[in-house]
């Protein structure tokens, strides 16, 4: 089936006529760093650098050798992280900026939903602005007049259309801008993350309009962070990363690959963040000789809940180090170390310790905190009636969680070893981070194992969003 659809990327001879053709395009932005905001003719003349100042110091490559072809009537979704070049690509296709190298060819009238209502003048009425905006987008005065009622209806602005635009709310502004842009009746529609334009009802209307465009065989280039939109609407997806094409093709496949990549990156970030936290905690070791109630908790859980906000509760490390926690690792269901887990996965907290001398009074504790600083769970060996006998040399304790029944979010872990009376040997406060991912966006602190059961005349439609 994919054969007849015509491929978007890397096909030298598309079977369908191309509406958008981008060939080996690079875009290099110039940066004028040393003067930036403070560019003055006076200083340029004084330092005799008028010509030099008009030249760039350094460059930034927003797009690097990107080629793509969108056949007529297809919808292409462009995804990627912030700064990956999505908007630059859209601006190039719209003709607002020129490529540094390569060529961009577009067949037919373009309408770019990039900045809605750009060019509205605040002092004059909505009516006059609709005309000027329409003309700016390439309509003639007559054409705007013909579509005027339809535009106003679509924007739901009938009673305000004669008022000056400066009196409009931002939602009204965007709605009117959207209505004008969409009524230009383009062959090629470029959309940049503009669907957050109004209430539910309006969003639905916009989606319907897109669907209509698709039906009528228009070409759409959609830049969005909404992956479900890409999966639902687009015929193909393109994944940009740091100005290069990282993947293209079937939306489900590309979105999947993209999500995996995002998780991998989060993994790196969390690992790096934890390493930083540990480094700074090591630098500020509190001596056990000057104990205070804050550093000598009876039980780690209580202090933690009292601290409240996690972002105020500083990470830290303290203790006498008679027993030292040398390493803490989080291991997922496949046994691999990680920082991002699915809700319901199993999780092992592996704690390596070293006791240079034999010690007979010790308690190992673990606490899990969510982003608000609420303790989701805390326990230790003493609470669970394990009476210490002895510890000596290198040891490992594994706190094995069978199923991580937590909702989506970021969590931090306390790990500690201390005496029964609370005297800390080594206390690691919020030094380990993991993230829980979940398809369901449920709320709360913890997700009890559950199922729904129904009886009687109660039915649900099959879910469409889930793949």
């Amino acid at each position, binding site marked *: 089936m994919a054969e007849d659809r015509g491929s978007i990327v890397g096909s030298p001879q598309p079977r369908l006529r191309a509406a958008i053709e981008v060939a080996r395009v690079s875009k290099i932005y110039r940066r004028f760093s040393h003067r930036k905001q403070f560019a003055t*003719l006076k200083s*340029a003349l004084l330092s005799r650098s008028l010509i030099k100042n008009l030249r760039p110091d350094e460059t930034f490559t927003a797009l690097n050798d990107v080629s793509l072809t969108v056949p007529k009537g297809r919808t292409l979704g462009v995804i990627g992280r912030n700064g990956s070049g999505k908007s630059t690509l859209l601006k190039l296709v*719209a003709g607002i*900026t020129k490529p540094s190298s390569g060529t961009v060819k577009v067949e037919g009238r373009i309408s*770019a939903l990039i900045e809605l209502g*750009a060019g509205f003048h605040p*002092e*004059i009425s909505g009516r006059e602005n609709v005309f000027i905006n329409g003309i700016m987008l390439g309509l003639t*005065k007559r054409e705007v007049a013909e579509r005027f009622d339809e535009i106003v209806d679509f924007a739901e602005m009938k009673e305000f259309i004669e008022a000056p635009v400066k009196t409009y709310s931002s939602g009204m502004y965007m709605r009117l801008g959207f209505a004008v842009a969409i009524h230009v009746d383009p062959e090629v529609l470029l959309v940049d993350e503009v669907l957050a334009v109004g209430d539910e009802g309006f969003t639905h209307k916009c989606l319907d309009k897109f669907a209509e465009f698709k039906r009528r065989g228009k070409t759409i280039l959609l830049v969005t962070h909404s992956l479900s939109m890409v999966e639902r609407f687009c015929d193909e997806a393109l994944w940009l990363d740091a100005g290069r094409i990282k993947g293209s093709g079937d939306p489900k496949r590309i979105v999947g690959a993209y999500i995996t990549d995002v998780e991998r990156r989060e993994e790196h970030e969390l690992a790096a963040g934890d390493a930083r936290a540990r480094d700074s905690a090591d630098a500020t070791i509190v001596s056990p000789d000057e104990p205070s109630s804050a550093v000598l908790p009876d039980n780690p859980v209580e202090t933690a809940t009292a601290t409240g906000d996690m972002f105020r509760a500083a990470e830290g490390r303290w203790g006498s180090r008679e027993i030292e926690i040398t390493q803490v690792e989080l291991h997922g269901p496949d046994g691999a170390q990680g920082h991002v887990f699915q809700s319901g996965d199993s999780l092992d907290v592996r704690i390596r310790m070293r006791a240079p001398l034999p010690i007979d009074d010790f308690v190992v504790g673990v606490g899990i905190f969510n982003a608000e600083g609420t303790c989701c769970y805390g326990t230790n060996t003493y609470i669970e009636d394990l009476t210490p006998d002895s510890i000596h040399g290198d040891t490992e304790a594994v706190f094995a969680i069978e199923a991580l029944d937590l909702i989506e979010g970021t969590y931090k872990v306390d790990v500690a070893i201390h005496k029964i009376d609370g005297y800390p040997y080594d206390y690691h406060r919020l030094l380990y981070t993991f993230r829980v991912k979940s398809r369901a966006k449920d709320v709360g602190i913890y997700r009890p194992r559950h199922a729904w059961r129904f009886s009687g005349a109660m039915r649900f439609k099959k879910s469409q969003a889930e793949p």
Partner: protein
Amino acid sequence: MLHNLAQLPRYRGLIQSLVARELKARYRGSVLGFFWSFINPLTLLLIYTFVFKYVMPAAIKGADPYPLFMFCGILPWTWFASSLTESSGVLISGGNLIKKVLFPAEILPIVTVTANMIHFFLALPILAVFLIVYKAPLTAGELLCFPLVVAVQYLFTLGCALILSALTVHFRDIKDILSNVLTLWFFATPIIYPYLGAPAIATRFLNWNPMAHIVISYQEILFFQGPFGHWKWLAALAVGSVLLFLGAYWIFDRLRDSFAEEV
């Protein structure tokens, strides 16, 4: 460059509606509306009439009736000066359009200069009243030259506006420099004093000032008796203005790609 220049007529409709918007927006939200923009020249007129008629009358020999003389020069000057002041900031304030909409940037300075020209036209009835009241010696032949002077001034002003607007994107202090230059330029143009009344050494400098020739042309047509003897200067200036416009457009075109990134 020539390709872009050739595209300009296609945007006639857009320029038209933007100029209309500009004018409407200016007069909305103020009671006196339209008349505000003549308060400035009228104030100048009152001040200078007072100064030159009663304080130092010797300086304006040959410029009687003085209010009419001054009005002939001050109106075109206002067009010129406010065009330059506004166009120096027009690309920055219109940054949204340049960055987000497919839109030839030169339309913005063109709209500024054109809108100010319409102002000038709107003030002409007042000038006509002055001409009738003071029984100015008008001839049909001279009046036919009036549109030519307007055309030359339009082209000259547009050339200046294009350069200014493009450079201000890179050098933000041009706006501040400009207001000083314009004050100097105002006094270096025979608006409040007659050209012929100026000492010989001064007229040599005045000859280098294009605006002087434009203002003198207006004065000869509307104020002074006798044939329009300044036409040679005006013709030379017309050629100069065409060259200036082409040069300015070339500069503007060269800097065009930097606008979307710099504003």
